[in-house]
């Protein structure tokens, strides 16, 4: 078959399949709208929306048929070219790609690709991103467990020292002929010795270093978890922790500005009131007070 005839045939198949798909979708949506309007429901009950799965399935089947035909035609064309009865093998392969509907769908439409990705979520290219994030959480968790063990070791050594000191103290008291103690007195001695040992341990470099590493490991785990949840939040459209923090920051800054403006306004009002009060006081000072019972002056013409 002439290549251009192949092109025509496939274009026609695509058009038919595409039109069938669009028509099926429109029918499905119309049906859904009709069902929603006519659904009998009690007051307050949500409308029973039919999923229209049957229509979707049917549209999908139509599309699949069109796709299948297109693929068959593409295979035939490619084979024809490879048989050498047409253009050179290089051009044959190139033409074969041009006639392959898969390339028509996947190439040249970045918007379509972006929209698909946004709607459908992770694709194969993203799979390793998720795995890396899970791996980071697991690594942080094992690091925290390791730091816990290291810190527990330091604490255990401190407890052993305290126990040794307690035994020594008890032995010294016994050797000195001290009266036998009640359980309460012994407990008090133990508490005092253990407390002192633990407080001394707290001030040592290994303890402080271990505490710091433990804190950092805990923080790292929390941050790794947050990164993972933020990732899923973005994929599924939930507000993420980072986004909320941004909102809180904006609100805090707005409140600050508002408070500053209100304070300026108040200061201005106070200034005006003070000035008015001062003026009033000065006026009262400068106004002469009339002498009491002064006889009225008459002009005796």
């Amino acid at each position, binding site marked *: 078959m002439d290549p251009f005839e192949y092109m025509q045939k496939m274009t026609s198949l695509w058009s038919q399949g595409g039109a069938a798909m669009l028509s099926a979708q429109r029918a499905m949506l119309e049906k859904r709208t009709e069902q929603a309007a006519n659904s009998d429901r009690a007051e307050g009950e949500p409308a029973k929306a039919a999923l229209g799965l049957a229509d979707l399935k049917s549209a999908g089947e139509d599309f699949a048929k069109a796709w299948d035909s297109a693929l068959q035609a593409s295979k035939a064309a490619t084979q024809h070219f490879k048989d050498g009865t047409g253009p050179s093998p290089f051009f044959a392969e190139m033409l074969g790609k041009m006639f392959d509907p898969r390339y028509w769908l996947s190439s040249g439409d970045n918007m379509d690709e972006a929209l698909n990705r946004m709607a459908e979520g992770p694709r194969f290219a993203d799979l390793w991103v998720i795995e890396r994030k899970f791996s980071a959480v697991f690594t942080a968790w094992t690091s925290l467990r390791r730091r816990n063990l290291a810190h527990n070791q330091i604490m255990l050594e401190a407890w052993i020292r305290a126990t040794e000191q307690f035994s020594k103290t008890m032995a010294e008291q016994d050797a000195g002929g001290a009266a036998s103690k*009640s*359980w309460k007195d012994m*407990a008090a001695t133990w*508490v*005092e010795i*253990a*407390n*002192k040992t*633990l*407080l*001394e341990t*707290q*001030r040592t470099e290994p303890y*402080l*270093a271990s*505490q*710091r590493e433990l*804190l*950092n490991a805990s*923080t*790292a785990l*929390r*941050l790794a978890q*947050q990164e993972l949840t933020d990732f899923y939040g973005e994929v599924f459209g939930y507000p993420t922790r980072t986004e*909320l*923090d941004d909102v*809180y*920051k904006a*609100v*805090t*800054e707005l*409140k*600050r500005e508002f*408070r500053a403006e209100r*304070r300026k306004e108040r200061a201005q009002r106070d200034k005006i009131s003070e000035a008015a009060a001062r003026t009033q006081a000065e006026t009262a000072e400068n106004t002469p007070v009339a002498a009491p019972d002064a006889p009225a002056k008459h002009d005796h013409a």
Partner: protein
Amino acid sequence: MAEVAKLGQKLARGAELFATVRDEDVAIATTPKDEVWRQDKVKLFHYRPLGNVTISPPVLIAYGLIGRYTMADLQEDRSLVRNLIKLGVDLYVVDWGEPSRADRWLTIDDYVDGYLWECVREVSARSGGGPINLLGICEGGVFTLCFAALYQKLIKNLILTITPIDFHGDTVENKLGHGFINLWTRSLSSQDIDHLIDAYGNLPGEFMGSVFSMLSPMRTLTKYNLDMLDVVDDRNKFMNFLRMEKWLADRPHHPGEAAKQWLIELYQQNKLINNAFKLGGRLVDLGNVTMPTLNVFAKDDNIVPPATSQALGRKIGSKDYSELGLPGGHVGVFVGGKSQTLLAPGIADWLRQRQ
């Protein structure tokens, strides 16, 4: 045998008490007060007088962001608030509320320049418009000190209690068990603190609670067995124990950016005593604190060792600066039995002489 029997008796009485006491029975901060102003989560309360007001102007209490002011009014017979009111003080208190992650961007500037400024203005307006008395507790003491340095004309007298000024002053006495928070914070880098705040948004209340628990490690371990065993058969002592626990359990989160300033600029870099701390773009110069100032500290304070507080004497500009060292620890100086006859009378007498 006798000891075992006695213990059994104690436990039986304790079990009875446990069965009868309810959460609503454990009430703290019961001195009557009225909300008179509010902004965001911050509320200003005015305590109702219990007698004649003989000391003026009013006193505004400002606690910090770690823990809550209710410690100053723990119970009727252990209450700085109640004692001050009985001694004739017209009293207000600011409650910073319950910060959440939404408040993570609030800074100390917002609290001092913003909320505290509004509260001072409100108290002043309600009492004739003149300067008022400020009483700060711990981190609240730092807030009120900074306020006094920036707005001298608004404050008549300043009272600081258990307030750290020189955050490296723990090395002066170097007493075992004292100043661990100072030491621990200095062992971290500023980046460690940034990451901690970024991860949680705020400095979580339970985190600070666990740090405080480390200050007396054995006490923490034995509190609910040995210590409670001592009080479990005495209703009054048991209720005192539970009220203290109720206050300890109330640990609000510390807003993140304010926590960074607190831990990095103050605890690590010690900017306050060096007159290098800035709020609202202005330098907090302790030399500008020129009003009469009373600095109350606890002699056995393991959280704010005395030297960290007394350092104020070297830098303050006021010519009327007094110190009052009281027996007890950081919280004990407020809630201890002996303190009730020392703290409030000490403050009231000092104020009376400066009306």
